[in-house]
């Protein structure tokens, strides 16, 4: 895990970039890579690459980046891990490749030399990288299928820039801060900025599962190479019989966890009292990991109550023989760290605070790498959305199909029961949005609904943002091709939207703020392909039950029961207090469930510094 950046002055009229800009962008990502740094320039100085290193595989200096191929033709900067690197290396060596390091970075150079852009189909892992081809004078960029690792680009028409963080690109000083209405609206709709947009018009994310080529004709449109919906659509025709589910899950998860343990430094784990991380820990043990440190975040407020995760996590830890570290957090520390958290947040997010604190705990424990159970709910149907979305579609979809009915219903409720419209805006939007999977998902996950935006965002920004974002079209596009089953559709919607734009992005900035690499074995394209035939027909609770039985010694039944009751964390209440303190304008927000996230969103977007005048973004 590292920070990468680069500048390519591709246009014939452009001047060679300044070294100072390359360094300013690179060093704005110091926390991503505290172990080393490097730069590389092409002979004409029209391409510069920068790298900050967090050493995890091949800790020696010879594995430093930017790394040049032996013949000098290719230069790579890479952020992430290639988990099938040993197999790839063996194959490449059979084909005659000579390795100078034991780093997965070098494998990328050989693979690109052998397979060109098609190399991405051979990679298993989380990755964002750029390879400069001296002969073709072009830059090849790629990002992993789920979008675990970030990669942002900016093109002003003469010069192309990229970096692992939005704020790092801005730190270079040559990119406009003009706001992107689609990013602002997207944040208010979803609680995170949906890719490819950012808050800034001139900065975009290279979408997950895409490659991009840049040469003297400029950057090409990103090309997709992996599609979650396609994997599920293909598998829907041949679903796995229910009886085979446990074995398929056990084998798939063991394979993924084993792959994710590839490291030259210790790999720990974030352990909650839930099924996902508990099963991870058990499978780590099955995969042969001897010394395991498991870190649990606990809250002073919950000490001695059933909501305290620490006792159950300790039991699970004991079952698998891990060394358990409980890191307690209280309100004082939360408020003390809040400015640092907001500063570390690369793009606004209404979540990520818990991840920030557990990553802080991991850093205190001296870890560099930790596994996380992130992705279990998306893969094994753990969210209520797996139940709600199909129901809402069935119950309300027919009404929503009547043109204008949803709109009239909303207007009618507003007129006759204005309090209900304020207290339950999603209920009011039910007949308007449940006509499609995309609409139903927006209803379920939405922070604000489109019709509410003009109340909280400048009406012109709201209108233009919706026009540019096209939220329903964008959500519907993630379901192309149709996964063909309800479970498959919800899995894709959650994975390609909420998980990608919020959970994974939060794991990146919050982990990297403490120089901690968070690995997510349940967010693995190979594992998805293995489990896709089973996901098609997954019954409620069956997925998590199978996951709980994935370790040779299954998780205790209590873990499953607890998963059903859910968790609560006091950070929500703290965030609400902070919001009230920091951003008084939230007084205009409706008082109802979900208020915390809405209040928090105001704090976050106003802290991100999009504009000096919050009124430009927020409606008065």
């Amino acid at each position, binding site marked *: 895990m590292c920070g990468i950046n680069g500048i390519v002055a591709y*246009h*014939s*009229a452009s*001047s060679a970039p300044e070294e100072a800009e390359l360094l300013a962008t690179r060093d704005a990502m110091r926390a991503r890579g505290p172990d080393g740094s490097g730069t590389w320039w092409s002979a004409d100085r029209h391409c510069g690459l920068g790298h900050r290193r967090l050493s995890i595989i091949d800790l020696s200096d010879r594995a430093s980046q930017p790394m040049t191929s032996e013949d000098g033709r290719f230069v790579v900067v890479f952020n992430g891990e290639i988990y099938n690197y040993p197999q790839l290396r063996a194959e490449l060596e059979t084909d005659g490749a000579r390795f100078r390091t034991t780093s997965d970075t070098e494998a990328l150079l050989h693979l690109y030399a052998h397979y060109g852009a098609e190399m991405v189909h051979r990679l298993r892992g989380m990755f964002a990288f750029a390879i400069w081809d001296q002969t073709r004078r072009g830059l090849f960029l790629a990002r992993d299928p789920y979008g675990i690792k970030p990669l942002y680009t900016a*093109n*002003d*028409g*003469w010069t192309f820039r990229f970096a692992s963080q939005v704020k790092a690109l801005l730190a270079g000083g040559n990119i*406009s801060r*003009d706001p992107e209405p*689609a990013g602002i609206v997207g944040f208010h709709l979803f609680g995170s900025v949906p890719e490819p947009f950012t808050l800034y*018009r*001139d900065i*975009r994310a290279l979408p997950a599962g895409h490659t991009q080529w840049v040469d*003297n*004709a*400029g*950057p*090409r*449109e*990103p090309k997709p190479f992996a599609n979650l919906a396609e994997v599920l659509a293909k598998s829907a025709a041949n679903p796995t019989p229910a009886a085979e589910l446990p074995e398929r899950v056990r084998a798939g998860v063991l394979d993924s966890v084993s792959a994710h343990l590839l490291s030259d430094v210790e790999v720990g784990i974030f352990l909650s009292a839930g099924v996902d991380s508990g099963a991870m820990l058990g499978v780590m043990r099955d995969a042969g990991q001897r010394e395991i440190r498991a870190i649990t975040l606990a809250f002073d407020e919950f000490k001695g109550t059933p909501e305290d995760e620490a006792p159950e996590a300790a039991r699970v830890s004991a079952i698998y023989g891990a060394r358990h570290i409980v890191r307690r957090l209280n309100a004082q520390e939360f408020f003390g760290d809040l400015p640092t958290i907001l500063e570390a947040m690369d793009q606004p997010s209404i979540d990520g605070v818990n991840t920030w604190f557990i990553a802080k705990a991991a850093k205190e424990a001296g870890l560099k790498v930790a596994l996380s159970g992130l992705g279990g709910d998306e893969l094994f149907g753990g969210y209520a959305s797996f139940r709600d979305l199909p129901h809402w579609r069935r119950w309300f979809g027919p009404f929503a199909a009547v043109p204008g009915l949803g709109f009239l219903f909303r207007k009618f409720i507003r007129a006759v029961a204005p309090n209900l419209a304020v207290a339950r805006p999603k209920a009011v939007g039910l007949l308007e949005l449940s006509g499609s999977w995309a609409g139903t998902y927006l209803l379920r996950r939405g922070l604000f609904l489109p019709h509410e935006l003009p109340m909280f965002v400048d009406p012109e920004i709201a209108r233009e943002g919706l*026009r*540019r974002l*096209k939220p329903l079209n964008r959500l519907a596009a993630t379901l192309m091709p149709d996964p063909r089953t309800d479970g498959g559709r919800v899995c894709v919607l959650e994975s390609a939207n909420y998980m990608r734009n919020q959970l994974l992005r939060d794991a990146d900035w919050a982990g990297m703020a403490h120089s901690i690499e968070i690995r997510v074995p349940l967010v693995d394209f190979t594992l998805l392909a293995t489990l896709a035939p089973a996901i098609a027909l997954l019954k409620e609770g069956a997925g998590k039950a199978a996951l709980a039985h994935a370790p040779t010694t299954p998780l205790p039944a209590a873990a499953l029961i607890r998963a059903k009751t859910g968790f609560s964390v006091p950070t929500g209440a703290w965030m609400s207090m902070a919001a009230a303190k920091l951003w008084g304008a939230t007084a205009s927000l409706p008082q109802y469930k979900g208020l915390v996230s809405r209040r928090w969103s105001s704090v976050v977007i106003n802290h991100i510094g999009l504009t000096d005048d919050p009124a430009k973004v927020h409606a008065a």
Partner: protein
Amino acid sequence: MKRLPRLLALVGDAFGGRGGIAQYNRDFLGALAKSGAVSSITVVPRIARGFFLLPEKIEQTPAHAARSVYALAALRTAFSRPFDLVFCGHVFMAPLAALIARLKGAKLIVQTHGIEAWPRPSRAQLMAVEAADLVLCVSRYTRSAVLNWAAIVPERVLVLSNTVRDIFTPGDGSALRAELGLQGKRVLLTVARLDSQDRYKGHDRVIAVLPQLVAQGHDVAYVVVGDGYDRARLEAAALRAVGAERVRFLGEVELQSLIKFYRMADLFVMPSTGEGFGIAFLEAMACGTRALGLNVAGAKDALADEQLGRAAPETELAATIARVLVEPKGDPGTLAAAVRARFGPETFATGVCNALNRLMETA
């Protein structure tokens, strides 16, 4: 063998036209025809005056200035023969071009220049630009403005800067200087239209700093080439500012004379706030004369982020002019070569080919 595409160009003016946009259209279409990447180009202009020569592979239909007549002529031409590409030379024509492209199943290229493309256009124009397969902009500033209002994939919006013709070269301007009675003076030159709607060009700004320059001991003269309804007002203002001895308003001049004016000047200055690009900067520098503009809009591109010329903040115009006047002039040939390397015809032709290849990559 794959058939080369046939291009239909809807333009305000190109061959037989005057001004920067007509020149750009001629440069673009000429480079395209020469590239061998298209089999034919049919130009449908609104304005074409006098005698002109058409390059090989290019034909031009009769001009029709009236909007409706022009639209009918464009449609008739479009359906009289096959076309694979439609080039739209101006945002105003984008709805018509988009309609034709759609009906013909052709790819659409929309060209944007300067102030016409900066504000949000009409809904019809907006939709047409968003439907384009490629949008070409003469500068980064114009590209940024287009992306501000158009919901279009940014990779489809390219910068293809203006070019400067080979005819603009360094040379001796002393004869013209003597003819104008400006020997020994430091000559500031502006070449631009003088219409009231073109006041953004900045003549007033130059006139305003002249007394200050004179007071500082700079023996300057201000030469203005170009004509328009605002000329009398500007001339009177300049005379009031520094007197007849230091001011020459010379109206429009022929191309050969224009080159001599560029060569004669010590500094080409056009503190414009509204340049899409500012081709006059390139022409001056290609003639070996230093150039100065404001650090706003497309002028920054023509001045290559101060790698070729000076791009001053408006508040520092007088100080920057004064500074440049006392700096060593440098070798005109070196400046001209640097301009040509970035913006010369060969570089422009490469850019045109790159743009077309980009379009055909997605065919």
